[in-house]
C-alpha cells in the first residue's frame, strides 16, 4: 500500500539571529491510509515543525530540504496557489489551543459557513448553513450554539468546532497537533473519541502529534518516536509498549506517571495542624460562588492532594489561604493562627510561613531579575539577610533543587521550563516554611521533566518535613505524591480521605468519573 503522506529526509533549519538551528534532521516516515500514526516526542523534538511542514506553514525563517510526498506531488516545492488547494481540502489540521485557533470576533457558525463555501464555491448560503449544522451535530455540539462566539464555549467545545472545521473539506489526512494537551482530563478522552469518530466519517488517516504516551496507547496504530529532530524508533503501538528498542523510548515509557508509587507514611495525630480550613466559602462578585463550605486539615509533614477540574475551586482555596480571595464565611488557620480578620502585619508574618509554587514558572519569576535575586528576595525582605550570607544561602538553595550554585546570575529566559520550576521551588522554600502550596506545579512541563520535578518535591519534603497542599488535575501525579486526597467539584469537597481509600475505592460518582477519564497503565 502506498503511503498517504511520506516524508523523505526532511530537514528543517531555522535562521535565528545569525545562526541556524536544526529543528528537524533527516526525518523519514510515512502515514498509511486509514491508520492513526502517533508522532511522539518532548517539546523541541521537532514534531510540530514536521507537521507544519506538511502543509507548508513554516515561518519565513525556516529552510526546508528533503521531500514531502502527498498524492504524487512534493509539498516542499508547491507554490502558494497549490498549497491553498492542498490545505483543508486534502490535509486538515487541528491545533493545540482550540480557543486561540478560532477567530474571536466571528461566530462559530459563520466560520463554519465560510470554510464550507471556500471548499464548495457553488454552494448557496442556506445549503452551507445546513451542512454546518450537520457538522456541529457530528462533533456533538448543539445546533443552538451556531451563533455563539468562541469565548462563550468551553475549551473542549472549541476543539470540537475545530474538528468540525477540519472535517468540512473531507480531507484524506487529518493532522492533530497536541489536540488534548490544553484540555481537562475528563474532556481529553471525549475529544479523542470525537477524533476517532470523524475518522470513520472521512475515511482518512490521522497523524496524531503528542508528548503524552498515555494518549498514544489508547488510540494510535503505530508510533514514531522523535528526539532532537530525528526519528529514534518506529513501531506498532503494542510492540513499542512491550518491547521498546531504544533507551530513550524506555525512558519516555518510564516517565509516564503510574499509580501507587508513594509509600504509605504514618500520619501523626493530636498535633496542631499546619493548616486548617473550616467551612470556607468564597464568593466572587462577577462569577458567583467559587468555594462552597470546604473543610480541610493538613498535619505537619503531610502532603494533601487537592484534585478537581479547572473551575472546581481548587486554586481559589489556595488564594484564600494566602489571603488573596474574598472570604464570605468560614475560617482559615495557619499554624493555629486565624487568617480571617488578621491585621496586615500579622497577615504578612503568617504568609512568610507559606511557600508557593505556581503552575507557570515563566510567569511567576521576574524576567528582569537574575534567578539568584528572585530566590534571595524573601530572605532579604523577611529575615534581613544581606551580602555574602545571602549569596551563600542562595547557593545552598540552588543546590537543594539540583541546580549549580554558579547559576545564581542567570536569567529566567536562559533556563528551560523544568529548571525554572526548580528555581520557583527554591524560592518557595527560602524561608523554610512549614507549609508549601503547589498549584499545578508540573502541568506546564513535559512528562519526563514532570517526573524529575515530582521526585524533587518528594525528596525535599523528606528532608525538610514541610506540609504540602498539592493542587492538581492529574490523579496519577497525586497518587504518586500525596498522603491524603480531597476531591473537589463545583466548589465542594465531594470526597476526602487517605489516598488509598479515595483512589482505590472511591465512593463519590464524580471521583469515579475522574478516575475513569484517566487510563491507568
Amino acid at each position, binding site marked *: 500500500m502506498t503511503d498517504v503522506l511520506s516524508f523523505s529526509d526532511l530537514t528543517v533549519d531555522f535562521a535565528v539571529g545569525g545562526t541556524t538551528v536544526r529543528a528537524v534532521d533527516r526525518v523519514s516516515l510515512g502515514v498509511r491510509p486509514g491508520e492513526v500514526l502517533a508522532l511522539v516526542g518532548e517539546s523541541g523534538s521537532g514534531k510540530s515543525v514536521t507537521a507544519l511542514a506538511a502543509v507548508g506553514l513554516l515561518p519565513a525563517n525556516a529552510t526546508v530540504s528533503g521531500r514531502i510526498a502527498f498524492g504524487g506531488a512534493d509539498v516542499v516545492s508547491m507554490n502558494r496557489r497549490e498549497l491553498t488547494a492542498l490545505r483543508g481540502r486534502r490535509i486538515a489540521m487541528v*491545533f493545540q489551543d482550540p480557543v486561540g*485557533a*478560532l*477567530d474571536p*470576533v*466571528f*461566530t462559530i457558525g459563520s466560520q463554519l459557513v465560510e470554510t464550507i463555501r*471556500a471548499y464548495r464555491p457553488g454552494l448557496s448560503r442556506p445549503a452551507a448553513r445546513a451542512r454546518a449544522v450537520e457538522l456541529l451535530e457530528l462533533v456533538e455540539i448543539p445546533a443552538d450554539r451556531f451563533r455563539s*462566539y468562541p469565548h462563550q464555549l468551553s475549551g473542549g467545545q472549541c476543539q470540537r468546532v*475545530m474538528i468540525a472545521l477540519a472535517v468540512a473539506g473531507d480531507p484524506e489526512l487529518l493532522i492533530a497537533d497536541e489536540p488534548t494537551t490544553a484540555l481537562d482530563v475528563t474532556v481529553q478522552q471525549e475529544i479523542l473519541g470525537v477524533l476517532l469518530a470523524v475518522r470513520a466519517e472521512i475515511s482518512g488517516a490521522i497523524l496524531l502529534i503528542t508528548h503524552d504516551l498515555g494518549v498514544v496507547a489508547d488510540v494510535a496504530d503505530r508510533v514514531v518516536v522523535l528526539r532532537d529532530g530525528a526519528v529514534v524508533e518506529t513501531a506498532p503501538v503494542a510492540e513499542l509498549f512491550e518491547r521498546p528498542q531504544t533507551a530513550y523510548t524506555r525512558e519516555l515509557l518510564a516517565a509516564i506517571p503510574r499509580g501507587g508509587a508513594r509509600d504509605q507514611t504514618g500520619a501523626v495525630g493530636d498535633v496542631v495542624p499546619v493548616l486548617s480550613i473550616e467551612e470556607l466559602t468564597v464568593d466572587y462578585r462577577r462569577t458567583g460562588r467559587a468555594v462552597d463550605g470546604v473543610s480541610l486539615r493538613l498535619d505537619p509533614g503531610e502532603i494533601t492532594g487537592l484534585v478537581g477540574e479547572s473551575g472546581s475551586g481548587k486554586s481559589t482555596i489556595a488564594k484564600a489561604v494566602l489571603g488573596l480571595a474574598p472570604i464570605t464565611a468560614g475560617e482559615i488557620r495557619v499554624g493555629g493562627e486565624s487568617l480571617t480578620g488578621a491585621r496586615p502585619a500579622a497577615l504578612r508574618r503568617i504568609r512568610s510561613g507559606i511557600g508557593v509554587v505556581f503552575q507557570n514558572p515563566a510567569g511567576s519569576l521576574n524576567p528582569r531579575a537574575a534567578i539568584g535575586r528572585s530566590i534571595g528576595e524573601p530572605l532579604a525582605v523577611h529575615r534581613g539577610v544581606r551580602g555574602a550570607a545571602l549569596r551563600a544561602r542562595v547557593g545552598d538553595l540552588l543546590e537543594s533543587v539540583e541546580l549549580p550554585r554558579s547559576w545564581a546570575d542567570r536569567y529566567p529566559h536562559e533556563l528551560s521550563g523544568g529548571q525554572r520550576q526548580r528555581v520557583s521551588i527554591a524560592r518557595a522554600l527560602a524561608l523554610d516554611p512549614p507549609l508549601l502550596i503547589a498549584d499545578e506545579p508540573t502541568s506546564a512541563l513535559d512528562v519526563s521533566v514532570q517526573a524529575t520535578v515530582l521526585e524533587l518535591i518528594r525528596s525535599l519534603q523528606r528532608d525538610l518535613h514541610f506540609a504540602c497542599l498539592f493542587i492538581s488535575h492529574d490523579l496519577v501525579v497525586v497518587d504518586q505524591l500525596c498522603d491524603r486526597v480531597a476531591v473537589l467539584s463545583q466548589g465542594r469537597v465531594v470526597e476526602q480521605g487517605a489516598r488509598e481509600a479515595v483512589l482505590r475505592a472511591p465512593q463519590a460518582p464524580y471521583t469515579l468519573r475522574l478516575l475513569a477519564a484517566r487510563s491507568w497503565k
Partner: protein
Amino acid sequence: MLRFTLRRLAELALVFLGVTFAIYAAVFALPGDPIASLGGDRPLAPDVAERIRAVYHLNDPLWSQYLRYLGRLLTGDLGTDFHGRSVAERLATRWPVTIRLALTAWVIQVVVGVGLGLLAGLRKNTWIDRSVLVLTILIASVPVFVLAATAQLVFGVRLALLPIAGISDGWPLSYLLPATTLAVYGLAAVARLTRGSVAETMGSDHVRALWARGLSRRRVIGIHVLRNSSIPVLTFLAVDLGFLLGGAVVTEGIFNLPGVGQLLFQSIRSHEGPTVVGIATALIIVFLLSSALVDLLNSLLDPRIRHD
C-alpha cells in the same frame, strides 16, 4: 447591558460636572480684571464698572455663579461674552472651519496612516517596514511651527500651488496645507498602531488556522486580519477625532484659520471668561461623545466585551 449603560451615563455626568467646574474656577482665578481691560488704556468710571459687574453677577460667590451658568447651560444657552455677544453664535461661525480642518486631517490620517501601517504590518521586518517607521517618526519629531512654515514656504511661496494662509479659497484648497500639517502628528501613532496590530494578528494562532484551512489570501487578510486588527486602531482614531475637533491652536494660528482654536486662544488672552468656559464646555461635550462612540464601536467590533 442596561446597568452598564446607566453606569456609563452616570460617569459621563460626573466627568462633565467636574471638568466644567474646574475650568470655570480656573478662568475666574486668572490674574487681571476683565472689566478693567474692557476699557482699554483709559480706565472705566468706577460706577460703570460696578454696573457691568452687577449685570454679570461678578460679585456673587463663585459657586452661585457656576450654578447659574449650569442652569442656563441645560437650556442650551452658553451665555454671552463681556461685549454682549452670544457665545453660542460666535462659536457657530467658528465651528465649520474647525470641523472642515479636523475632518480633512482625520481622513488624511486614516488613509495614509492605516495604509502605511497595513503595508508595514504585512511586510514586517522588511525594508518597507523600517522605512515607514523612520519616515513617520522623523516627520513627527519636527516642531509644528517649523513644519508649518516650511510647508508654507515650499508649497505656498516657491511652488505657489496652494494658498499660504486664510480661508478665502474655501475647501479643499485652503485646508490642504494646514490639514496635512495637523495630520502628520497623529500619523506616526496611527501607522505604528496599525502595524503592530496587523503584525500581531498575522502571527496569531487563529490566522495560522485559517491558512491551514486553505482559505484565500483575500479572505484571510481582507476579512479576518482586518477586522481583528482594526479594534485598537479604530479606538485610537475615534479619540483622535475628538482631539482634532478641539481645534488646533498653533496650526490655526499659523495658517490664520478663524476656527475654534484661534477663538479660544484670543479669549484666554483677553480674559473673556464666559467665552473660554463656553468653548471648553462645547469641547468637553465633543470629547465625551467621542469616548462614548469608542465604547460603542468596541462593543460592535469585539463580541468579547459585549456582555458585561
